[in-house]
C-alpha cells in the first residue's frame, strides 16, 4: 500500500511516502523551492517522493493530510470572536488565507496529485506528531508527549503508543501553549518567530536565569504538569503583528532590536530565563506522562521537542531512561506521522522500522557534481576510491581549511547530519568565529556541533550510554563536554561548557564516519565541527549546483561533492 503524507499551509511544508508501512522518502519543500520555511503546497517535495519510487499520483492508495482543517478553522473563528473588537486584523488576514487556499485543501490535493476525493484522509495535528515519533521509534511500548505552538486546538498532548496503537489521552488547548510562549520571547529578543528559536537557545548560555520569577508571572504550571499563560501579557491570539502585549513590555522593558549587540547582558539574561522556564515546563510534562503511563521510554514530537537543552535534562533529571525524537520533530515531520498513522492504525500494515538515520531526501550522482563544478569554471579533482578522497579531505581539514561536504540523500529535518554539512577542525578556538563570520555570515554567539564517532563519544561528552540514544544521532541532545575535553575541542564547546553533540554511526553514515575516524588518526581527536550547508537566511543546499553556488559566495576553502573535490579558482588542487 502506497501512502503519501502531506503537511502545508503553516510553516515547513513537507511530503513523505510510506510504502507497505515503511518510510521510503521524505523531504521539506524548502529544499526544492529555496524558500526558507516554505509553507505553500509541497508540489516539488511530492514530485520527489513519487519519483523516488517511480510512482504517479494514480499509484497512491491514499493521501494523508496532517491535520483536520475545519477544526482549525473553527479554532481561528472562535479566537476571533473571543477577541472582539481587537481581532479585525486577524479576521481579515485569516479569512483571506482560508477562503483562498486552506478551506479547499481537499480539492487542491485532488487536482495536484490526481487522486479521487474519497482517497484523501485527515489525521489530527498532534496525532500526526505522535505517530511520527512512536512509529519511527525502536519501542514496542512508550509514553508519548507532543508539544508545539498549536495544531487544531491542541498545543500539548500526552498519550501512549503500543504495537500498532497510538493514542493521545490528555491535552492542553490553545491559547495555553509552550511553543507560543517561547515564540513570544523569540520576538521580544529581536528574532523572527518560527526561525529564531534556535538563536534564543544559543544565546541563553551567555546569560544567567535571573528573571525566571518574572517569567513565572506570565505562565503558571500546576503540579500535574499542565500550565496556563496569563493572556493579559500576550497578543498572539488577536494581533497579526505582535505576540506580546503592552503589559508584557511593562514587565520586561523595551524589546531587543535586531541591531542591539548580542552581548547586551539584559537580553542574554532574558534568553537564559525563558530557556530555564521552558525546561522546567517540559520536565513537568515529562513527569506527568511518566506518572500516567508508567513507561520509562518516551517519544516526543512537535517543535518544542527540538529544544535540545531541555531534551538533555529529560535524560538526566526525570525517570525517563530511553528517549526517542525523530529528526524532523516540527510540523514538517507530521507529514510522515500522518502517513504512518494511516498505515499502522487504519490499515494495520505490518511493516515496522526504526528511524536511526535522517537520510530520506534527494541524492545526486557523480555526473551532476562534475557538471556543476565544470559549469562554474572551478578546478576540481574526482577520486576513484574512497580512501584517497577521505585522505585528501582530512589533509585539508588538518591544515585549517573549511570544507563543504555533500553526500548521498539530504537530511530530513532542520539539522545537517553529515550529508549536507560544512566541516572544520574543532581543535582551533578561532574556527568558531571564522565559520560564523566568513562562511555562514551569522551571529557570532551561535554554537557549532561536534560530530563524534559512536565509539569515541564518551571521551568528549558526559552522556552515559550515548550509543543507545538515537536523538543524539540527530543533534537533539545537549550534554556537558567533559572538563578535560573542553580545551581539546574549543570550537564546538559552548560558552557554558556544553555541546549539541552528534553521534555518528558507521552503518548509517559510513563515509562521514570514515572521514572523522581518519581525521582522528591524523590528529588524535576524532571530532569534526559540523554546521549546516547554507548561508544565513537560506535553506540547506540540495543539488550540486546549489552547493557550488553557496561555495562561491562564502569563504569556504573546498567542496566535496560525492567523489569530487572542488576548489576555489587559483587555489591548489
Amino acid at each position, binding site marked *: 500500500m502506497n501512502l503519501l503524507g502531506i503537511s502545508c499551509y503553516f510553516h515547513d511544508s513537507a511530503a513523505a511516502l510510506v510504502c507497505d508501512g515503511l518510510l521510503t522518502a521524505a523531504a521539506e519543500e524548502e529544499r526544492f523551492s529555496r524558500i526558507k520555511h516554505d509553507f505553500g503546497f509541497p508540489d516539488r517535495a511530492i514530485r520527489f517522493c513519487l519519483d523516488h519510487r517511480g510512482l504517479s499520483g494514480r499509484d497512491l492508495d491514499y493521501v494523508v493530510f496532517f491535520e483536520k482543517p475545519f477544526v482549525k478553522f473553527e479554532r481561528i473563528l472562535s479566537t476571533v*470572536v473571543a477577541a472582539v473588537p481587537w481581532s*479585525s486584523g486577524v*479576521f*481579515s488576514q485569516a479569512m483571506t488565507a482560508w477562503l483562498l487556499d486552506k478551506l479547499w485543501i481537499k480539492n487542491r490535493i485532488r487536482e495536484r496529485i490526481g487522486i479521487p476525493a*474519497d482517497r484523501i484522509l485527515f489525521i489530527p495535528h498532534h496525532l500526526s506528531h505522535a505517530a511520527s515519533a512512536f512509529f519511527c521509534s525502536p519501542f514496542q511500548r512508550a509514553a508519548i508527549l507532543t508539544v508545539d505552538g498549536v495544531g487544531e486546538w491542541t498545543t500539548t498532548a500526552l498519550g501512549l503508543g503500543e504495537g500498532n496503537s497510538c493514542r493521545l489521552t490528555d491535552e492542553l488547548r490553545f491559547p495555553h501553549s509552550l511553543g507560543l510562549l517561547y515564540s513570544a520571547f523569540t520576538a521580544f529578543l529581536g528574532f523572527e518567530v518560527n526561525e529564531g528559536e534556535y538563536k534564543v537557545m544559543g544565546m541563553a548560555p551567555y546569560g544567567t536565569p535571573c528573571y525566571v520569577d518574572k517569567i513565572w508571572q506570565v505562565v503558571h504550571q500546576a503540579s500535574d504538569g499542565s500550565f496556563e499563560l496569563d493572556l493579559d501579557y500576550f497578543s498572539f491570539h488577536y494581533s497579526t503583528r505582535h505576540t506580546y502585549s503592552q503589559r508584557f513590555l511593562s514587565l520586561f522593558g523595551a524589546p531587543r532590536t535586531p541591531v542591539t549587540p548580542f552581548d547586551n547582558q539584559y537580553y542574554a539574561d532574558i534568553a537564559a530565563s525563558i530557556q530555564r522556564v521552558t525546561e522546567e515546563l517540559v520536565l513537568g510534562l515529562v513527569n506527568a506522562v511518566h506518572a500516567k503511563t508508567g513507561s520509562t521510554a518516551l517519544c516526543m514530537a512537535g517543535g518544542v521537542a527540538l529544544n535540545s537543552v531541555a531534551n538533555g535534562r529529560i535524560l538526566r533529571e526525570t525517570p525517563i531512561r530511553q528517549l526517542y525524537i525523530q529528526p524532523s520533530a516540527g510540523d514538517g515531520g507530521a507529514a510522515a506521522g500522518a502517513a504512518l498513522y494511516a498505515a499502522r492504525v487504519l490499515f494495520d500494515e505490518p511493516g515496522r522500522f526504526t528511524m536511526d538515520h535522517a537520510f530520506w531526501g534527494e541524492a545526486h550522482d557523480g555526473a551532476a557534481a562534475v557538471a556543476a563544478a565544470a559549469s562554474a569554471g572551478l578546478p576540481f579533482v574526482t577520486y576513484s576510491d574512497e580512501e584517497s578522497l577521505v585522505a585528501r579531505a582530512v589533509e585539508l581539514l588538518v591544515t585549517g581549511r573549511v570544507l563543504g561536504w555533500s553526500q548521498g540523500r539530504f537530511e530530513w529535518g532542520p539539522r545537517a547530519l553529515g550529508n549536507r554539512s560544512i566541516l572544520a577542525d574543532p581543535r582551533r578556538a578561532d574556527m568558531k568565529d571564522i565559520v560564523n563570520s566568513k562562511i555562514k555570515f551569522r551571529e557570532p554567539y551561535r554554537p557549532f556541533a561536534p560530530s563524534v564517532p559512536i565509539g569515541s563519544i564518551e571521551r568528549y561528552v558526559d552522556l552515559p550510554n550515548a550509543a543507545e540514544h538515537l536523538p543524539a544521532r540527530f543533534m537533539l541532545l545537549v550534554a556537558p563536554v567533559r572538563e578535560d575535553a573542553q580545551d581539546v575541542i574549543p570550537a564546538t564547546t559552548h560558552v557554558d561548557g556544553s555541546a549539541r553533540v552528534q553521534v555518528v554511526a558507521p552503518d548509517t553514515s559510513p563515509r562521514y564516519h570514515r572521514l572523522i575516524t581518519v581525521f582522528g588518526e591524523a590528529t588524535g581527536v576524532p571530532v569534526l565541527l559540523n554546521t549546516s550547508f547554507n548561508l544565513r537566511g537560506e535553506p540547506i543546499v540540495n543539488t550540486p549546483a546549489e552547493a557550488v553556488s553557496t561555495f562561491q559566495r562564502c569563504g569556504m576553502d573546498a567542496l566535496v561533492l560525492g567523489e569530487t573535490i572542488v576548489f576555489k579558482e587559483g587555489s591548489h588542487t
Partner: protein
Amino acid sequence: MNHAWRRWQRFAHRAAEIQSRVLLILLYFALVTPIALVIGFVKSRGASRTAMWHPVASPPESLDSAKKQF
C-alpha cells in the same frame, strides 16, 4: 498588448485586495461583533480560565472518520 494586460492584472489584483479587505472589515463589525457580544454575555456566567488537562476526543481509528475534515 501583453504589457497593458499585465498592468491591468496588477491593478485589478490590488483593487480586489482592497475590496476584500473593506468587505471583510464590514463583515467583522456587522456579523462577528454582534455574535461575539451574545457569546460573551452567555459565557460570562460561570466561565473558567483554567487550562487543566482535557480528555482527548476519540481519534479517527476508522477510515470513515479519517475521511472527514472535522
